[in-house]
């Protein structure tokens, strides 16, 4: 039998499961973390995502995909959702959802944009805005496992108050966290204050010679720019894993 047919036959269908909202955390004015209880969750790898399905009272349904924010070691499944203007699902999640509400999830999905401590490092994570979510799952996984893999994070955000997980980022200890604020920097800001460029990526390191595993996530334009710069600096294109989200989302 062809290998593909075999794969298809052996794999069981990933089923829809009911998720119950146990807690809601406001990360920024536009971003919220949903802490979910999913009985019999089959576990996930840092970097994977889930499909979600909402059902309205009249039976209307909408599906979207969201990155998982929590570490595989976390007892609860967490999604961090950014409000997309006019997005029917993200607006519901960020503005209307209450503790105790239920919806469906299906996953985990994705076998490429993932990292496990066993995969080793060094690790270079480059995030644009809420593209930080799956990368945070990797850093939380690293912390939960007590790993000392060399890890660097470069986060690009417009303004400081738009940075999600701010306190947690500051407490990450041995992770090299660099933040660039592209629109507005507070007085006394010590981080970068411009759009991502080659000089910034070199300063963040690790150098291409140390062959880091690179994960880039953010809006399309950001990822295109960051990945092009990384390739130009000499990073192996095959070692750069990218995840892009368009302006549409929902």
């Amino acid at each position: 039998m062809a290998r593909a047919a075999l794969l298809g036959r052996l794999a069981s269908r990933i089923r829809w499961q009911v998720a119950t909202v146990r807690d809601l955390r406001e990360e920024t004015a536009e971003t919220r973390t949903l802490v979910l209880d999913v009985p019999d969750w089959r576990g996930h790898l840092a970097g994977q995502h889930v499909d979600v399905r909402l059902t309205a009272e009249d039976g209307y349904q909408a599906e979207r995909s969201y990155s998982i924010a929590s570490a595989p070691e976390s007892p609860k499944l967490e999604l961090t959702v950014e409000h997309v203007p006019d997005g029917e699902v993200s607006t519901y999640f960020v503005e209307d959802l209450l503790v105790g509400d239920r919806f469906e999830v299906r996953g985990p999905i994705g076998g490429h944009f993932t990292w496990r401590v066993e995969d080793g490092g060094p690790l270079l994570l480059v995030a644009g805005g809420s593209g930080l979510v799956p990368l945070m799952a990797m850093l939380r996984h690293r912390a939960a496992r007590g790993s000392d893999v060399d890890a660097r994070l470069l986060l690009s955000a417009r303004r400081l108050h738009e940075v999600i997980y701010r306190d947690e980022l500051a407490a990450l200890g041995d992770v090299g966290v660099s933040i660039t604020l592209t629109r507005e920097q507070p007085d006394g800001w010590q981080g970068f204050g411009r759009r991502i460029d080659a000089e910034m990526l070199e300063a963040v390191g690790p150098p291409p010679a140390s062959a880091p595993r690179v994960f880039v996530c953010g809006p399309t334009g950001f990822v295109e720019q960051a990945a092009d710069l990384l390739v130009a600096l000499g990073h192996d294109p095959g070692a750069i894993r990218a995840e892009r989200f368009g302006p549409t989302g929902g």
Partner: protein
Amino acid sequence: MPPISRGFGARRRRPEVDPARVPPGQYVVRDFPVLSAGPTPHTPVEEWSLTIDGAVDEALSWSWDEFLALPSETFTVDIHCVTKWSKLATTWTGVSVDTLLEDVSTEAEYLTAWCDGGYTTNLALEDVTDGRAWVVHDFEGDPLESEHGGPARLLVPHLYFWKSAKWLRGLALTIEDEPGFWEAAGYHNRGDPWQEQRYWGD
């Protein structure tokens, strides 16, 4: 019975599209999102070629100019991405895979599309013949941008869009069906959006 999300649906989008054109679990977008697993390759057309090889009696190859000189078609189709967006009425110009395979003699029933950047995807020959697939170089009348797969990409609109490989450089015909990049990483081997064949086991 799925749980009802109290209060959901009040902000429902009611796009003016024929619901019969939207596969299950999809929603319609107006822009053109980009999805790929790594950096975007930027291959100059002077260095580009398209090859048909693998289980064939004689391999074929076209330079960019030779490829552009092949009979082309302009056509309008709906496209459906496994990440749940669908884009209706997209217009492309390119060469039918039937045209590319016209002089190919093969026992193969499958092919692997391979690309700059290392991406691959597998397809049954019957999914890319009889006017069901093209290698396209223009989108909406303009040369295809590299982030959308330029200089040329495969277009197989009746399957999820990851089958429409960007930065296409060759079609390798195969006797056995060999899972490609996403097909080996949890995504469905065929990917029919109307059957919602998103992941393994669907």
